[in-house]
């Protein structure tokens, strides 16, 4: 079984334009399905918005092209140069913000320790986790932080966390002390568990700082256009584009690709569970275009309600998401290589499992 897989892969790696034919299947019609989902596995990246240049070291906040930005005050909107041994300029309020940040880092560390003991199942080191300096711990925080300082009072203890009540006597700051991290990973997975592709989404922070209250669900909307390109790039070879794509925010994707000929024959629907629980009945476009019941090819045979297991991405995410603690400190090359290797090897295990379960795993053969 395994050696067969290896031989087949040789053909699959050939970088040539191929046409997909399969003599056995001549005269038949097919629909293949994939599910797309996001997952919170991240790696550190340059703190400049949407910069894809890799960091030289995991201690860095900026890539080599934006290194000069480290000499600018960490307060958002302030462009004064920093004072030595500090990430802020000489402004007294800004200095207090940094003091608060360091104190917050210490208390956060204690809380995080409680949380990780209670929840994290896969520590990097089963015996002891090496802890470095407080500064590095504080830098674990990747997003920009909100601070409020009472006017006229300058002690650090009086700098408070942002609370719900907005007081006119408080000054508000946003600061970026730590490294940023990428936004998430999107995976494209077939209902049998084969992972087709993985793509890192870098941040959309500029938009998010405006609409802070929006949840992750709406975050995806910003990235839809990017997702469209990813689908087109992944399935750029003719014949590979699946007939149906499940994505939990397909109503947005369907609007974006309405006029795109590539997607003319691709069904876009929302996975059954998400459609029932998360999509508004009042959204007419969504209800008329993304309801999985409208797609006859998805209907199951016999007593089965659905032909395909559209919840597969959540199941696969549980597997991939567990790598978070292993990958969060990797540099980008190793991170990508590691995750792709893990996926490659898991696909081999999936292949063996499908072969044993008589699901007839095959590959569209290539003819040059």
């Amino acid at each position, binding site marked *: 079984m395994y050696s067969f897989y290896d031989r087949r892969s040789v053909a699959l790696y050939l970088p040539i334009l191929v046409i*997909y034919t399969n003599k056995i299947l*001549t005269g038949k*019609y097919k629909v293949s*399905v994939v599910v797309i989902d996001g997952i919170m596995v991240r790696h550190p990246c340059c703190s400049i918005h949407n910069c894809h240049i890799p960091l030289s070291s995991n201690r860095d906040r900026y890539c080599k092209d934006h290194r000069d930005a480290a000499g600018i005050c960490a307060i958002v909107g302030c462009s004064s140069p920093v004072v030595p041994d500090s990430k802020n300029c000489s402004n007294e309020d800004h200095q207090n913000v940094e003091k608060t940040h360091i104190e917050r880092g210490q208390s956060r560390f204690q809380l995080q320790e409680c949380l990780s003991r209670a929840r994290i199942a896969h520590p990097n080191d089963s015996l002891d986790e090496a802890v470095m300096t407080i500064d590095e711990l504080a830098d674990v925080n990747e997003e920009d932080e909100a601070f409020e300082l009472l006017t006229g009072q300058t002690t650090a203890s009086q700098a408070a966390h942002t609370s719900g009540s907005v007081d006119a006597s408080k000054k508000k700051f946003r600061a970026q002390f730590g490294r940023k991290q990428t936004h998430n990973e999107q995976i494209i997975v077939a209902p049998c568990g084969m992972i087709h592709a993985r793509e890192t989404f870098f941040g959309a922070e500029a938009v998010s700082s405006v609409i802070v209250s929006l949840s992750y669900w709406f975050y995806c909307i910003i990235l839809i256009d990017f997702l469209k390109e990813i689908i087109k790039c992944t399935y750029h070879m003719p014949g*590979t584009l699946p007939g149906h794509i499940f994505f939990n925010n397909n109503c947005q994707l369907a609007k974006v690709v309405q006029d795109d000929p590539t997607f003319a024959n691709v069904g876009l629907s929302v996975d059954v569970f998400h459609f029932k629980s998360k999509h508004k009945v009042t959204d007419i476009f969504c209800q008329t275009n993304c309801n999985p019941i409208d797609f006859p*090819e998805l209907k199951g045979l016999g007593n089965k309600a659905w032909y395909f297991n559209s919840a597969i991405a959540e199941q696969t995410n549980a597997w991939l998401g567990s790598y978070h603690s*292993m990958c969060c400190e990797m540099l980008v090359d190793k991170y990508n290589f590691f995750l792709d290797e893990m996926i490659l090897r898991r696909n081999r295990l999936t*292949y063996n499992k499908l072969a044993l379960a008589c699901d007839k795993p095959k590959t569209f053969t290539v003819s040059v």
Partner: protein
Amino acid sequence: MSKWLITDFWRTECNVNYHHNFYVHDGKRIYHDIGIPDIIQVGEHQFVERKVIELWITSMVVSWTSATNCARLYNSALSGNHKLPPGWKFGFTLDLDHVWNGFMILSLLEDLTLRKQTLSVPHTGLDSDRYKAAMQVQNRHMRLYSQPELRHYCNRCTHFTTDGQLPFIYLF
């Protein structure tokens, strides 16, 4: 599991230094084109059986084992109670860098062997930077062609029918 091999000899006439898995020429380690070796050099004096590296990688895939824990798995369960020969100053203990080196070398060799290419990495510099360029090539390839299973189909992910009424794609 760690084995000692006489690995290092020098051919003065062609300036090539031969090792067990690779030869060094012009500051580059060029791995032998003999498929995937059964014993892989993961450190200056550490050689590990391919099976052990496969065990590490499989633990990473099925149970999210970190490299540190893989090293610990080896040190406590697999290394056995070998006694050091007299005068031998290197221990049998492996650490996470050995695990990562084993992971990189085996994965890169497997991928490149499939593509009929030779693995070549710098001989000088830090261990952590050694495989960077080779990984970048592999990552670019993966981005361009995605996983090989992109062209997979089976009963669970593809629905075949002879009924052309449904919006199915016709296979020519």
